[in-house]
């Protein structure tokens, strides 16, 4: 067994050790979990530094007639990039949770959920067998289900979890069948063998695969679970529903992109672009801070998915990484703000997530404000941020690509980015610069290091240097030096366009109060909830009731009629038996009885009668003899 194999296995298994420790050290779950994440980070960086990407070792998990499923890892550049992103953000979220969840009950459930999630995500990033990948994929869904429904007392949290799970389950089952069909096609579940075979997938399987990743990555039309998933705790939203789990679908597509057929790639671009635009549009009309961010995540995920579609998985990867940091930062920042405001609100009725109630003077929460500002600028794609570089890279790839849909995609990126700037400034302005509404006291607990450290760390990771030394050239350190050139007009254009737009939007929102009459269609997220309810949920329930009544009326009814008929028949038989069969017997008996009666008359006991019969018979005899 190679050292790397053991190392990766250790990384994936350590969270479980953490969960065991939590059983033992019940009081310190927050600290033990964070400690374990710290160790995982060390191991991850040690592993990355080794640069050993070929892990040939594999363990046989189980064997069946024609196949054996082995536990192996398929480490390539993408997994090397994503591994530290997952472990770092998970660690920061753990640190943040120490403060954020400090007063919550059932802490061990919370931290065990986070650890379980981290383990599944790390396994998902590294695993090299489709069945193991599917296992990890489902575990991600389970962790998400449990954590969305963390506040079990809230009915809507339960429903959000239910919705998330069901939509994901729908996709997952298609993914499972795609995996099985891939096995039928390639005769292997091994990812490396499949990709090395360089055979393109059959169309049908490709499309099943595409449908299989839609829900997890919150793509249209299966995206509506993500906004309602925001009922979970904010750090969970940061880790699972912004930075890591939702990119699983994109990541899987990146991994499989060499074998995807062209039509599926086109499908990815179309669905991704559409999702990007729709998500951004919906974000402009939301009032709930976290829902704005959720729709923003949907929109950015759409951009990544579409990038895979124009055969530029590198661009998708780059945007995924930069987005992971600043979006996790945004969620943590907003979470921190919610936490502080909840402590300082003047009465308990105020919903601190509604931007119509906000208007916290930014000077009271300087750290939170400035970090959120940095993340927002990155989201908008303002120069000197990581978001600028990754978006520029997306644009360049779309421009340079020879794909027939790339121009269409190029336009969608620009549209989406424009709307992104608009909703982000709206969020910033109404959260921090609104005329003070006297909803909150100014006392603050924001200087706690458990809040500050993750925010500052993530904001450091939101600048250009995590991508390239040159803040205007999107050539990622880790990409092989391919020859690509960004058109000069594109660099200059985006450098000027986004800041100007940001400035204008800021002026616009700052000068007017928030509109209280939003577009209902956008507010409801294109009424996907209603649509799914009407198209799928209600008919399903109707069919269920129909089947039950068929069962009662027809199947059981038939049985009962049969039973009744049998009983009736047996009554008829018994009637016939009494009158016909038994009747005959009784008739015989009665006849002989009557006959006997007649005969019995002769035995009367009088001598005269006997004498008479004697003489009578004798006379008869004589007559018979004589004649």
């Amino acid at each position, binding site marked *: 067994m190679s050292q790397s194999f053991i190392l990766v296995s250790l990384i994936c298994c350590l969270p479980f050790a953490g969960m065991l420790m939590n059983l033992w050290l019940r009081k310190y779950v927050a600290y033990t979990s964070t400690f374990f994440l710290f160790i995982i980070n060390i191991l991850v960086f040690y592993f990355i530094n080794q640069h050993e990407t070929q892990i040939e070792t594999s363990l046989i*998990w189980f064997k069946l*007639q024609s*196949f054996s499923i082995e536990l192996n890892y398929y480490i390539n550049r993408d997994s090397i990039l994503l591994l530290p992103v997952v472990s770092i953000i998970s660690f920061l979220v753990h640190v943040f949770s120490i403060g954020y969840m400090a007063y919550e009950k059932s802490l061990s459930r919370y931290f065990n959920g986070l650890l379980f999630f981290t383990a599944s995500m790390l396994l998902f990033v590294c695993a090299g067998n489709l069945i193991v990948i*599917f*296992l990890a994929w489902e575990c991600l869904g389970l962790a998400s289900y449990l954590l969305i429904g963390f506040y079990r007392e809230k009915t809507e949290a*339960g429903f959000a979890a239910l919705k998330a799970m069901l939509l994901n389950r729908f996709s997952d089952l298609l993914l499972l069948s795609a995996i099985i069909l891939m096995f*039928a096609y390639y005769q292997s579940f091994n990812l490396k063998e499949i990709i090395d075979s360089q055979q393109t997938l059959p169309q049908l399987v490709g499309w099943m695969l595409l449908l299989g990743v839609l829900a997890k990555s919150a793509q249209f039309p299966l995206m509506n679970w993500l906004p309602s998933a925001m009922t979970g705790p904010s750090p969970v939203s940061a880790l699972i529903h912004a930075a890591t789990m939702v990119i699983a679908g994109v990541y899987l597509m990146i991994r499989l992109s060499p074998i995807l057929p062209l039509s599926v790639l086109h499908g990815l671009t179309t669905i991704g672009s559409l999702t990007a635009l729709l998500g951004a549009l919906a974000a402009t009309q939301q009032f709930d801070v976290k829902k704005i961010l959720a729709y923003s995540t949907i929109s950015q995920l759409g951009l990544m998915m579409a990038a895979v579609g124009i055969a530029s998985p590198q661009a998708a990867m780059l945007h995924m990484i930069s987005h992971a940091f600043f979006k996790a930062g945004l969620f943590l920042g907003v979470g921190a703000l919610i936490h502080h405001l909840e402590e300082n609100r003047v009465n308990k009725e105020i919903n601190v997530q509604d931007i119509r109630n906000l208007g916290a003077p930014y000077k009271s929460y300087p750290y939170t404000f400035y970090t959120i500002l940095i993340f927002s600028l990155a989201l908008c794609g303002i120069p000197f941020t990581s978001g600028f570089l990754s978006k520029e890279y997306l644009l360049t790839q779309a421009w340079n690509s020879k794909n027939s849909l790339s121009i269409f995609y190029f336009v969608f990126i620009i549209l989406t980015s424009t709307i992104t700037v608009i909703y982000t400034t709206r969020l910033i302005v109404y959260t921090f610069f609104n005329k003070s509404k006297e909803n909150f006291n100014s006392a603050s607990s924001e200087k706690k290091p458990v809040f500050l450290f993750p925010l500052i760390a993530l904001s450091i990771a939101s600048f250009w240097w995590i991508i390239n030394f040159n803040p205007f050239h999107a050539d990622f350190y880790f990409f092989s030096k391919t020859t690509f050139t960004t058109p000069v007009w594109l660099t200059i254009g985006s450098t000027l366009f986004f800041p100007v737009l940001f400035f204008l939007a800021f002026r616009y929102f700052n000068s007017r109060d928030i509109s209280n009459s939003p577009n209902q269609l956008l507010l409801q997220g294109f009424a996907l909830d209603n649509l799914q309810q009407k198209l799928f949920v209600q008919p399903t329930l109707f069919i269920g009731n129909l089947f039950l009544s068929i069962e009662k009326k027809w199947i059981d009814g038939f049985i009962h009629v049969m039973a009744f008929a049998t009983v009736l028949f047996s009554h008829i038989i018994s009637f016939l038996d009494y009158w016909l069969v038994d009747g005959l017997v009784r008739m015989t008996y009665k006849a002989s009885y009557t006959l006997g009666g007649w005969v019995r008359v002769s035995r009367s006991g009088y001598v005269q009668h006997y004498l008479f019969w004697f003489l009578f018979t004798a006379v008869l005899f004589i007559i018979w003899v004589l004649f």
Partner: protein
Amino acid sequence: MELPLLTLLILIPLLGALLILLVNGDTLFQRLALAVGLLQVLLFGVILFKTSLNSNTIYLSEKVNWFTLPLGKSGILQTHYHLLLDGLSLPLIGMSILVLLIATLASQEITNKKKGYFSLLLLLNASIMGSFMAQDFLLFYLFFEFMLLPMYFLIGIWGGKRREYASIKFFLYTLLGSLLILVVLIALYMSYGQGANPTVYSFSFDMAQQSNLLQADALLHPNNFSGIGGLSLRTWAFIFLFIGFGIKLPMFPFHTWLPDAHVEAPTPISVILAAILLKIGGYGLLRIAYPVFPSEALQLSFWVGLVGVISIVYGAWCALASKDLKKLIAYSSISHMGFVLLGLASAHAEGIAGVIYQMISHGFISAMLFLLAGVLYVRTHDRKIAHYSGLHQVMPVYFSFVLIAFFASLGMPGLSGFMAEFFVLTGAFMAGGSQAIIPFVFPMLALVGILLSAGYYLWTIQRMFMGTFHTSLSIEKSVFTDLSSQEKMMLVPLAILVFVLGLFPQVILQYINPFIEQWMSVVFPASAIGL
């Protein structure tokens, strides 16, 4: 002298039943039944140890002549007392022993007529052991039929309000199935004979699989073209067996006895019914119907698969609409047993492995589900889902077990249910490929069933467990106590097994694999399915 281990497995519960009839003492009965269960576990341990030394596909076998009947000119009838343990019966026996022990533990709730209850339970135990091991058709039929008797009384006497209706329905349905099987049993023994002067007829399964032993003028000879309704007699024989065992499974449309029997039966009997008795249907198909009539089975694969898929989808939909927790679980059983038929129809090794795996896995999962339903019923005497909400607040540990059981049943990877369904689906998709034994749409429909299972389980969690605590029954909150240590004792081993089977399938596959290899070579050799 070597101990007849397999016979002991049957004999111990029989002696136990006898002993219970002889002794007196109210608490003694359950203890005796538990002792029998523990002895069986011990015995099974010994058997496992012995099989680990044995590399054959047949681990243990016991065979003696039972009785001989001269049939005049045509030959003699020779019957055997033949028990056998192979890769199919070993996991099923192991599962049954464990579930029976747990059901005995759960019988705490029985308070009246204990003597009768526990002796009947042990009788049932013995006949279950017998039917999973018998290798002679007559012996199998004897055990198979004998199961009906204790089950009828166990439901009819210790059941709920509509117990008479449920028990009679159960009895009549199963009897109908048994009669169909009996017809085939007789036809089979008349068709296969060995040697000449005298020809030896028997009920042995081995003989019925050897086509060269078919008597030339036999009813079931493939060259016998006299048929009914355009189908040959062999096809009819397969159909009879299929329906006979299908009723037990149960399959659509012969399933309606199951929800009634489950709802009325006391918890431990529900557990045994769902976990073990249903499996005898699948076992019968695997052991008798398919090996004896392989080509007919292959011809009818489409119909077998169709019935399976309808059961999956129909059962799931009925479960979704059920308002009674136990009824929901009963319908989910129908849905999950549909996978047995789908796997069989696939005629692929993966599918067959899935069938066996599903039977074992469903044994543990359904036992857990019915125990959990029983936990609530014992406390409140009400099973309506709508009457509860927010139970997580008062019974958190109970909720954790419910989560494990529900997620195992809805096919979460890492738990046993997924492995079984994955194998079946793999087989079914492969069969839907180039050879087109069953259409491609069957596994897709099965997926709809799995999706629906997620729907009804998660919705049940949402309705009963999430939110703030509330009950529409006029019951004190203090009634809702969390699991007692005894209830945990029953649930924990099942939960562990569900995890073990989900994470380390090799535990069972090491027994199943050689069996399937041998089974496939006999029933569906590569040439038969066009590979």
